[in-house]
């Protein structure tokens, strides 16, 4: 893995939002994303996992420059995408695409799904006329949709079919990098597996690089080569998937793992290892953002005052915890 070339390098990425700004003042600033550093190697899938308010969706939007950062860079193939002028950015967008969670919200309800897939092909002048139609038919086949659905409207399709349309539309411009923002969260369990398998097939066939965003660790387990866990705008842990699931070093990752309800009757409930709630962005704790909920046996005053930096523990395995070397004891052992 180390010999591979980086496709996307995120350095010091920070995004501040301001709430309550208006006549009476500038409002209050909060950091939705705080100093995120992450590299996506070519052909790799990185699972970006976090609960509500963790900043994962803001990262998704920054990665393809739907938002401007407060500071930091996203280098795509060596080029900082925030330096690009509008024309260059438009070209760049061909190479990076976002797939949304809710395909019914991201597709125009009055546009036939075939037209929705055709649109980016024409806009980016990849094909015209009958060639573009042929390309749409190929894309439908590639994502496992029957060609007869090309002239359907979004509401005539099931959730799984709509998500396939969303994926086909993203693929239409032949991107190298796909940001998948909770791509299966809105789908029924029996349909989730279909879409996850499709994403695995596409990755293999096209050599795609994925940033796969999810709110729980079980969904990304099957696709991710590496996993990055976010909390309160910061990265808490990054590691190769096997290392993260086998030996999590951050207490928050351990809590996330043990919170997932198990289907194995022998591993029953009784596993809430993070007390309290995810902090609101405006009232983040000082020091380590996780400290008020942390059950680490070594937790002390330092956790309340000093923000632990993300530091490398072993090769490719980093955690932002002062006591990451000590056992978290709750990591899933199986």
């Amino acid at each position, binding site marked *: 893995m180390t010999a591979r070339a980086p496709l996307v390098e995120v350095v010091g990425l920070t995004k501040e939002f301001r709430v309550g700004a208006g006549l009476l003042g500038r409002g209050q600033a909060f950091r939705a994303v705080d100093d995120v550093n992450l590299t996506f190697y070519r052909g790799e899938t990185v699972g970006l996992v976090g609960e509500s308010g963790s900043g994962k969706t803001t990262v998704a939007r920054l990665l393809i420059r739907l938002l401007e950062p407060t500071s930091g860079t996203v280098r795509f193939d060596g080029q900082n995408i925030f330096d690009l002028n509008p024309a260059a950015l438009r070209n760049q967008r061909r190479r990076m695409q976002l797939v949304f969670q809710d395909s019914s919200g991201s597709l125009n309800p009055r546009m036939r799904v075939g037209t929705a897939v055709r649109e980016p092909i024409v806009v980016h002048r990849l094909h015209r006329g009958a060639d573009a139609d042929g390309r749409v038919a190929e894309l439908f086949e590639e994502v496992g949709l029957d060609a007869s659905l090309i002239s359907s409207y979004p509401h005539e399709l099931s959730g799984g079919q709509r998500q396939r349309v969303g994926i086909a539309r993203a693929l239409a411009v032949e991107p190298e990098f796909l940001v998948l923002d909770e791509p299966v969260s809105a789908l029924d369990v*029996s349909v989730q*597996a279909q879409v996850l398998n499709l994403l695995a097939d596409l990755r293999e066939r096209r050599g795609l690089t994925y940033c796969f965003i999810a709110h729980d660790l079980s969904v990304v*387990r*099957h*696709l991710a080569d590496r996993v990055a866990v976010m909390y309160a705008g910061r990265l808490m842990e990054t590691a190769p998937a096997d290392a993260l699931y086998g030996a999590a070093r951050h207490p928050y990752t351990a809590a996330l793992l043990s919170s997932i309800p198990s289907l194995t009757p022998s591993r029953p409930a009784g596993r*809430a290892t993070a007390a309290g709630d995810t902090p609101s962005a405006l009232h983040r704790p000082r020091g380590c953002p996780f400290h008020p909920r942390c059950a680490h046996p070594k937790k002390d005053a330092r956790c309340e005052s000093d923000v632990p930096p993300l530091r490398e523990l072993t090769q490719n395995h980093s955690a932002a915890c002062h006591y990451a070397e000590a056992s978290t004891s709750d990591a899933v052992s199986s």
Partner: protein
Amino acid sequence: MNPLLQVRDLTTTFMSAGQTVRAVDGVSFDLLPGETLGLVGESGCGKSVTALSLLRLLDDNGRIGAASRIEYDGANLATLPEKALRRIRGAEIAMIFQEPTTSLNPVLTVGLQIVEALRAHRDVSRKAARVRTIELLDVVGIPDPAARINAYPHELSGGMQQRVMIAMALSCEPKILIADEPTTALDVTVQAQILDLLAALKRELGMAMILISHDLGVVAGLADRIAVMYGGQLVELAAAATVLSKPQHPYTILLLESAPRLEQPMTRLPVIPGAVPKATAWPSGCRFHPRCPVAWDRCEREMPNVASAAPGHDMRCWLIDEPERRSR
């Protein structure tokens, strides 16, 4: 043990574009005292409509079939006059919902809402109700309950709001708690806390519970028995451990196999082809047949009845008649 609640042939219909839609179609089950029954299925399977039917909380447009019986304490809740039903609803059978935000009144303090729920069913003074409310908030794990009683819903997190809903549901010491997707809107770590709370309440209060979820994992840790629904019908019902480790119905088997698991990573997951059916167009015969890997011609023509696959293990599948067809 005599069942606390006996549901027989529950059928619930809605009118949609001039057509009668059978959202729930012939559902029967018992709920034993102190038992937790998990009701599991995907979107549109009828699990929530089943729950709402039990307390007749359906929209104006929903109708419970004439032959349906919901026997509780000698009465049929399906036909009981509204006034008598109101004495049971909330007091003896309470319900919590997926979205605590929309179930709580935003302009009243949470304490007042629980006090009102209590006084609607019990003849208690305001003062006694307030003391009891603080007690209840403590039971559901709300820190500093004497202060939080004056909080408005928006001042509480989603997890805390769901705890308030649970406290309100518990206020009259119900015999049955119906929890409809109680953790679906919550973060994973908070979901684990609420599931732990429900497990503790089950242990300590001994009430019966119907726990509804689209996620088998959520009910796995709590349910004594699990009922799996598909296409408006119950397709399998057995002890939780049996459903999770030795399911018989092809749908349950596939549902379990296709769920992502931490323990067994693999790049390709087993899938169930196609999509879940809609109540406006249930398939003929067995409603799972278009997606079933075992289905044969009979499954397309004839709807199987619920029959016993083993003692205490019911299922709706022709494999009971022709087990040799199971090739898996």
